[in-house]
């Protein structure tokens, strides 16, 4: 019992040791309005987590290390069968990269989340995920028994853990967005992972356009050629931005964005 004083009239106590909810956001997103910040985290490289996030909340992602990668999958909270669709999104936007103005769409034609801020300029939609086999081939083995929290965790396993918390299985694991990674395609169609960008210190924001389950893994991108398992940390802050206003940048970015946001608005009203 932490109480030093109990008020029996209002049924309240004075708490002398508050919970250890650290304001991580002050370090990587100090410009956010303090009263609007709901929570923030610093996810270690190779970590994973998931959240239920409401429409009108924005998620700020900040690369806190040079080799940061953040795989993100989205499911509608009201119906986990409605989920982020890479093909529907890329086809509608005619894009093979994501940046400010782009809208991530569900398989039901609705905006799930919009890129409202981006200081990096290219995030990878191709959806590669590091699995245990490729991780072993690239980095060797580093298991819990010897390495404790420094063990290697693949992106696929991290996301399987997270979506499993909501009853979703491997067959439900969709194509993620890999924030902070750039995979270009040459004339022969070959992938080329860009290691030349300054990633640390950049940030990107996703505004949630419906109530979502958001799962992330900060394991390395599977095409990152750099030796050693050394993924960077990622800061994540949730703040109440409100949903897309009528004059929103993303609405005006492309007519397809406007229609997907319209479909999400109609859904929110019904």
């Amino acid at each position, binding site marked *: 019992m932490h109480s030093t004083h109990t008020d029996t009239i209002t049924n309240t106590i004075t708490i002398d040791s508050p919970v250890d909810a650290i304001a991580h956001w002050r370090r990587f997103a100090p410009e956010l309005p303090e009263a609007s910040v709901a929570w923030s985290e610093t996810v270690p490289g190779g970590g994973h987590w998931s959240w239920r996030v409401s429409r009108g909340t924005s998620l700020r992602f900040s690369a806190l290390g040079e080799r940061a990668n953040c795989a993100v999958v989205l499911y509608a909270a009201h119906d986990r*069968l409605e989920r982020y*669709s*890479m*093909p*529907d999104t*890329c*086809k*509608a*936007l*005619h*894009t*093979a*990269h994501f940046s400010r103005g782009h809208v991530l*769409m569900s*398989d*039901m*034609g*609705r905006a799930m989340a919009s890129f409202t801020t981006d200081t990096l300029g*290219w995030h990878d939609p*191709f*959806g*590669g*995920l590091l*699995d245990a*086999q*490729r991780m072993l081939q690239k980095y060797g083995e580093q298991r819990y028994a010897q390495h404790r929290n420094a063990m290697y965790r693949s992106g696929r396993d991290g996301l399987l853990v997270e979506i499993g918390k909501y009853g979703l*299985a*491997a*067959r*439900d*694991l*969709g*194509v993620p967005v890999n924030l902070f990674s750039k995979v*270009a*395609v*040459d*004339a*022969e*169609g*070959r*992938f*080329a*992972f*860009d*290691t*030349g960008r300054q990633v640390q210190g950049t940030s990107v924001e996703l505004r949630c356009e419906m109530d979502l389950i958001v799962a992330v893994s900060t394991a390395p991108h*599977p*095409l990152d*050629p750099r030796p050693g398992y050394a993924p960077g940390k990622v800061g994540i802050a949730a703040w109440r931005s409100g949903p897309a206003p009528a004059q929103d940048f993303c609405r005006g970015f492309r007519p*397809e964005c406007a*229609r*997907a946001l*319209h*479909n999400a608005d109609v859904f929110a009203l019904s």
Partner: protein
Amino acid sequence: MTNSPAATTAATRLQTSRLDPADAALRHRQPAGEPWLAELRAGQTVRIVDLEGNQAADVLFYNRHDVAEHYSATDTLLQQGGIYLTTGSVLVSSAGRPMLTIVADTCGRHDTLGGACAAESNTVRYALQKKFMHSCRDNYLLAMARADIGLTKRDLVPNINFFMNVPVTPEGGLQFADGVSGPGKYVELRAEMDLWMLVSNCPQLNNPCNAYNPTPVEFIVWNAEPATA
């Protein structure tokens, strides 16, 4: 600086087949706009023929003994190091196993980034008032409902668009370019496991890729060649 992985992919790898349709176990003409669910056995070879040219055949594959294992576009592209499907491409499952191998291809390039059209995505891509037009994902849902084999909407993952040409530009754009296919061009795949093949012969009427005119495609299946003594 960029780094390429050990890529085996190529933009185009033309290869004709020596299989004779006269020896086929099955010849199936798939009408424009309709779904089809077919069984393929390990060792069988299936040829898909673009009869009139630039018709998208939207296809998904599932392990017939465990339908939770599906074709995985991302694993397929990751393993081959690039975006185009052509001769030599191995279609990989969500469990990382080979499902089929493309053994012949006279078209040269097939897409697996663009997905299958849906009524809902048509409202986004074209106009809200397009929602009552027919679509591949409606076709898939109907075929799955009729077959009742444990496949549902959750299994509608990114598919293959045979005969579609969807290049990526250096600037990160996704183009829906004029088709590289033509009348009579075909792609041929050898099944590496027992499969369900879920087909929608795309009914999209809003896309110039098929000249706004969906047409039939033919499926020709050969049994595994008997081992010669």
